[in-house]
């Protein structure tokens, strides 16, 4: 039975890959197309052509209803993730993993790192919702910021961080769960799958930046 099911996709894949290989010069000529693979494993990003995410000047609003910009994160390394508060599984786990990263830092360095959570859900995640979410996850430290912004600001940040997402009709979001670490100048230094239980890579990257 399984073999029978497998036959068809193989055939289709073969056709498709033939089409790709031989009939698509426009795709082949896209610059840097070989670099697009998002490494799902932990990976240190060497991005010499990349500059700071602080060049993005969109206005956000924080959970305490204050205007917020990415550049407010300058001066300290920052752990960044994107979530939405009505997300049932992936987002709480993302926050829990970031909190594990926070706990793994030496006591005298905890306040030398920012933790920034941006919402995908520009419609439903009001500052009050974000505050509620913070409370639910026992986030009280002033090193943390939760922010919401317009859909265009969300899209721009996600594109910058290489995060794919799509709003589905229910109002929920299908999205990558990625933890990014910025240095104090806003340059992306490290990214990992937020579902990865192993946080050694993230804490290692942070410790290097704090050194």
């Amino acid at each position, binding site marked *: 039975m399984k073999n029978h099911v497998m036959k068809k996709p193989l055939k289709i894949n073969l056709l498709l890959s033939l089409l790709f290989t031989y009939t698509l010069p426009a795709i082949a000529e896209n610059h840097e197309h070989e670099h697009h693979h998002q490494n799902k494993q932990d990976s240190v990003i060497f991005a010499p052509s990349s500059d700071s995410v602080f*060049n993005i000047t969109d206005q956000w609003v924080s959970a305490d209803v204050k205007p917020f910009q990415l550049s407010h994160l300058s001066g300290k390394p920052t752990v960044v993730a994107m979530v939405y508060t009505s997300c049932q599984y992936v987002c709480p786990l993302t926050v829990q993993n970031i909190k594990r990263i926070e706990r793994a830092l030496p006591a005298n360095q905890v306040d030398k790192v920012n933790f920034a959570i941006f919402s995908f859900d520009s419609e439903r995640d009001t500052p009050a919702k974000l505050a509620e979410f913070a409370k639910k996850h026992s986030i009280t430290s002033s090193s943390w910021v939760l922010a919401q912004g317009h859909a265009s600001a969300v899209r721009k940040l996600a594109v910058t961080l290489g995060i794919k997402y799509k709003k589905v009709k229910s109002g929920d979001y299908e999205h990558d769960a990625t933890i990014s670490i910025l240095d104090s100048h806003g340059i992306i230094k490290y990214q990992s799958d937020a579902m990865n239980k192993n946080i050694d890579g993230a804490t290692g990257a942070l410790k290097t930046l704090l050194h």
Partner: protein
Amino acid sequence: MKSNQLTFISILVLSNCLFLAASVSAEDMVRVDDMVLVPKGGFTPFFLKKDDTNNSSVLATSPATSVDAFWLDATPVTYRKFLAFVNKHPEWHQSNIKKIFTDSHYLEHWKNAQGSADSADLDKPVVNVSWFAAVAYCEAQDKRLPSTDEWEYTLTDNDRDTDNLQKQIMAWYSVPNKALPVVGSKPANGFGILDMAGLIWEWTEDFNSYMAPPDSRNSGDKTLFCGSGSLNASNLGDYAAFMRYSYRESLRGNFTGKNLGFRCAKDTK
């Protein structure tokens, strides 16, 4: 007095009807300042969305995704227009653009560092622009990039002459690139939109959306094109659509391509 009021109301109603008629009939299309009103409608996207997949029939005959009316540039943005934008917003000049917003090929075909193009090229579509630059251009015109759904819906042209469209697209995809012609060299589609196929690839606002149906990813199969993804295509004959979705999937916001340009859209309100 009363009859005056009635007359006024009937004029209002009449003008409303006229407007509605115009917005649903491509023959009487509404065009203002190089933008065309694309009427509300629907299309079946290449991959059905999660909410649409309530049973196993993937070849939906009714429109699976509806798209609200929106304004769309009749043609892709030209060098001439992009040049005017860069002159007004020097931070998007080739020598000033921030590295996080582009790869090293931004506007590389422009004749010199001043960002001026050969005058013969001015009406060609601007290419070698990153998503960030395209977004900045549209925002500067008080516009936005079209969503992928809007773009695909416009391409399908309300299912007018679908077979011919497929043939045209495949014919274009299968020939090597030539020097780009100026925009608007070919007839408009049924919406009054030009150059949707046969000229360049175009950025969409949400190019970084998932193309694979969420169900297949949740089931642990993460092979986006190679397994369940390709089987769940709503129209397996539509290789051209598959290529477009795959191409978008491969892009990052800072990429540029010498066949990759854009056009802008706008809400109707």
